[in-house]
């Protein structure tokens, strides 16, 4: 593969980097990244990965754009309200960078469809907003040996970690979803829009550094920040031998869906 004159100019600020160069940019152009959730986290992640020239970007989201999304989901514009999020996001990505092939999945991930969706991708970004989906993505990625970036945000807080086969997984740290109602959703608790941008952008950087094979990924550590006081900290984590999915005696050997109260989901687009 040879970079065209236009690509050399478009990606010049990447190519200049010692850790990227032409060879690294070509890796990016050949990479396939799946973004599950085209909302607060997925929107910035998708824009940065598209700008970077990630060859194939998959977008999974069954929702339509709501006016209340626009405060943070920067890939969607006012005129996109009521459109499918994946269609709105695809249009922006294609306008930003014609080098990117966009594949859309206008659906929610569940135990039956997730394996087929993640199969063709090199790296997966969890940009979902609910625990059942987060545990499902973790389980599917562990069972199918797929690297992924976990991300979660609420109010002014964000947390993220990266899983590579063999490193600590989400369940090593968080054994199972919290009881229903124990953790409020973004629609109940609120979220500073810029916090979504901060975390989604970290996730995009993880994907790019994984593709490049450079630097130290957020594996075996959980990055936590609070944007109200702008404090960052890291918690070292390690693979848990008692982990129900990647431990020594795994009890989860196939995918299951946790129940998500319907009212939670409904309230977000009918509120």
């Amino acid at each position: 593969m040879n970079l065209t004159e236009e690509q050399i100019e478009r990606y010049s600020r990447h190519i200049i980097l010692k850790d990227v160069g032409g060879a690294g940019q070509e890796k990016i152009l050949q990479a396939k990244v799946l973004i599950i959730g085209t909302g607060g986290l997925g929107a910035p992640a998708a824009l940065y990965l598209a700008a970077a020239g990630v060859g194939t970007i998959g977008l999974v989201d069954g929702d339509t754009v709501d006016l209340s999304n626009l405060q943070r989901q920067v890939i969607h514009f006012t005129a996109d309200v009521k459109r499918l999020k994946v269609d709105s996001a695809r249009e922006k990505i294609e306008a930003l960078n014609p080098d990117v092939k966009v594949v859309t999945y206008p659906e929610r991930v569940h135990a039956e469809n997730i394996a087929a969706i993640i199969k063709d991708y090199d790296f997966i970004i969890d940009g979902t907003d609910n625990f059942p989906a987060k545990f499902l993505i973790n389980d599917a990625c562990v069972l199918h040996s797929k690297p992924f970036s976990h991300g979660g945000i609420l109010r002014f807080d964000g947390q993220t970690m990266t899983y590579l086969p063999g490193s600590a997984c989400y369940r090593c740290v968080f054994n199972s979803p919290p009881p229903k109602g124990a953790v409020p959703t973004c629609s109940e608790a609120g979220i500073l829009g810029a916090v979504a941008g901060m975390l989604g952008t970290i996730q995009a950087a993880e994907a790019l550094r994984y593709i490049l094979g450079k630097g130290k990924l957020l594996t075996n550590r959980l990055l936590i920040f609070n944007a109200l006081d702008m404090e960052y900290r890291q918690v070292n984590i390690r693979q848990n031998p008692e982990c129900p999915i990647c431990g020594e005696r795994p009890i989860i050997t196939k995918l299951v869906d946790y129940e998500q109260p319907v009212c939670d989901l409904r309230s977000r687009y009918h509120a």
Partner: protein
Amino acid sequence: MGQEIKKSLDLHGVVCPLNFVKTKLALETLNSGEWLEVILDEGDAMLNVPRSLKEEGHRIVKVTPLGQTYSVIVEKGA
């Protein structure tokens, strides 16, 4: 100094940082220790490109003035 020039690149009229980007891409096609010749404009290009190349671990072997441009021979680093 008996080494041959593997590749030559005329970057006269190519502005910063694209001249460095193109030099870098040309060096990626060489093996370490091989030589690349680039023609650079005097001024910004000559101030910036050789310095950036050195920062990336390449060696400037020889600089020859050619009127308003320079021929710069670079040895690819490890």
